[in-house]
């Protein structure tokens, strides 16, 4: 256990934890776009910058990305110091210049009082902030279907060979967790299309509701030993089945122990 001070409050944290996780646990609102607890911290968006100091530093401060900074005894953290807010404003200003149409960035920048960028805006850009969260989550899921491709100005997120990714199962984790909702997918007539790959969606054999893709279900059955027939029915119909089954038992003795 280590003890540190965040915004004047003494808090406890376990060794090895990162500052941002502790800050968030204390319900302090520090913005971060590239952060997700499911994957290792990455420090791509730089928005989680905070001011750190120590008693013995004699007023000297450092500015670090809290998602990548491990907690330590005696650390004094200020998440919204004037300099920190200035740094965040600059980062958001740069984001705004690069992604002028991105609603998530416009909103966050607005919270910090940045409504117009002072840099030259990118006209034909997209809303991908290249944080790589999608690729990191895909790796964490064990699919490794997408990755960063190229470098510098030409860097982008793409499947291998820029073709439909063979390892993608259409779990949609990339799209669901994209901080700017940039990753597009389409669901049409029982087909899911993402990364230019088409997936058949399983449908509930009772009500016809679409659930997950066949590839994802097969992966879960094979890798995680989930009986394949579990995927035949949707969650609502599963509950009805359970109620009916328990109803039959209850009809005998009218008492069920869960």
């Amino acid at each position, binding site marked *: 256990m280590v003890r540190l001070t965040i915004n004047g409050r003494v808090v406890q944290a376990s060794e090895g934890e990162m500052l941002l996780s502790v800050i*968030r646990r204390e319900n302090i609102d520090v913005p971060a776009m590239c952060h*997700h*607890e*499911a994957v290792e911290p990455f420090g791509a968006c730089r928005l989680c910058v905070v001011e750190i100091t120590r008693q013995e530093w004699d007023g000297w401060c450092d500015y670090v990305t809290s998602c990548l900074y491990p907690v330590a005894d005696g650390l004094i953290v200020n998440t919204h110091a004037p300099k920190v807010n200035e740094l965040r404003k600059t980062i958001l200003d740069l984001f705004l210049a690069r992604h002028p149409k991105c609603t998530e960035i416009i909103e966050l920048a607005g919270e910090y009082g940045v409504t117009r960028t002072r840099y030259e805006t990118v006209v034909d850009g997209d809303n991908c902030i290249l944080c790589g969260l999608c690729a990191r*989550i895909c790796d*964490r*899921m*064990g699919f490794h279907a997408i990755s960063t491709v190229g470098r510098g100005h030409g860097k982008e997120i793409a499947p291998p060979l820029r073709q439909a990714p063979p390892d993608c199962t259409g*779990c*949609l*984790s990339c799209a*669901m*967790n994209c901080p700017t909702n940039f990753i597009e997918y389409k669901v049409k007539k029982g087909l899911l299309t993402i990364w230019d790959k088409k997936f058949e969606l*399983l449908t509930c054999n009772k009500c016809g509701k679409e*659930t*997950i893709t066949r590839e*994802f*279900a097969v992966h*879960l059955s094979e890798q*995680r*030993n*989930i*009986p394949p027939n*579990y*995927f035949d*029915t*949707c*969650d*609502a*119909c*599963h*509950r*009805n*089945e*359970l*109620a*009916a089954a*328990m*109803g*039959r038992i*209850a*009809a005998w003795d*009218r*008492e*069920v*122990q*869960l």
Partner: protein
Amino acid sequence: MNHRFIVTPNLCTGCRTCELACSFTHAVDNVRGQTRIFPLDGGSKDLWIPVVCLQCDDAACVKSCLVDALRRNPGTGAIELNQEVCVKCMACVAACPFGCSLLDQQHNIVVKCDLCGGDPACAHFCPTKALQWLPIAPARARAAS
């Protein structure tokens, strides 16, 4: 781990107070959450069965989670979903054979019963005691009688 849900279906009137209790208890940002408990038609007349997560020993939801967001709380015995870790892939929703892992469409998060940290609100609020949260010993005694 030393408590059990005791359901007495013939006492259940289908009033859905448990649903409301669950929904209010699991509010997110002061907006009602998706209920994790469902009083459903038990198949015969006036027979209602409150369907809630069974906290299975060998749980399909835990097995299906590729990012280890679902973990059993050793204190309460509940399988809890860590929202921070969940990547919303819907694997657990699809895999649970009892449909007790579900999507909260309002907040766009996956939710499941966490036994309210050891004191489930649904049982608290059940006006007819059709749903009770009892220590194991009295529960066994009741089941035996």
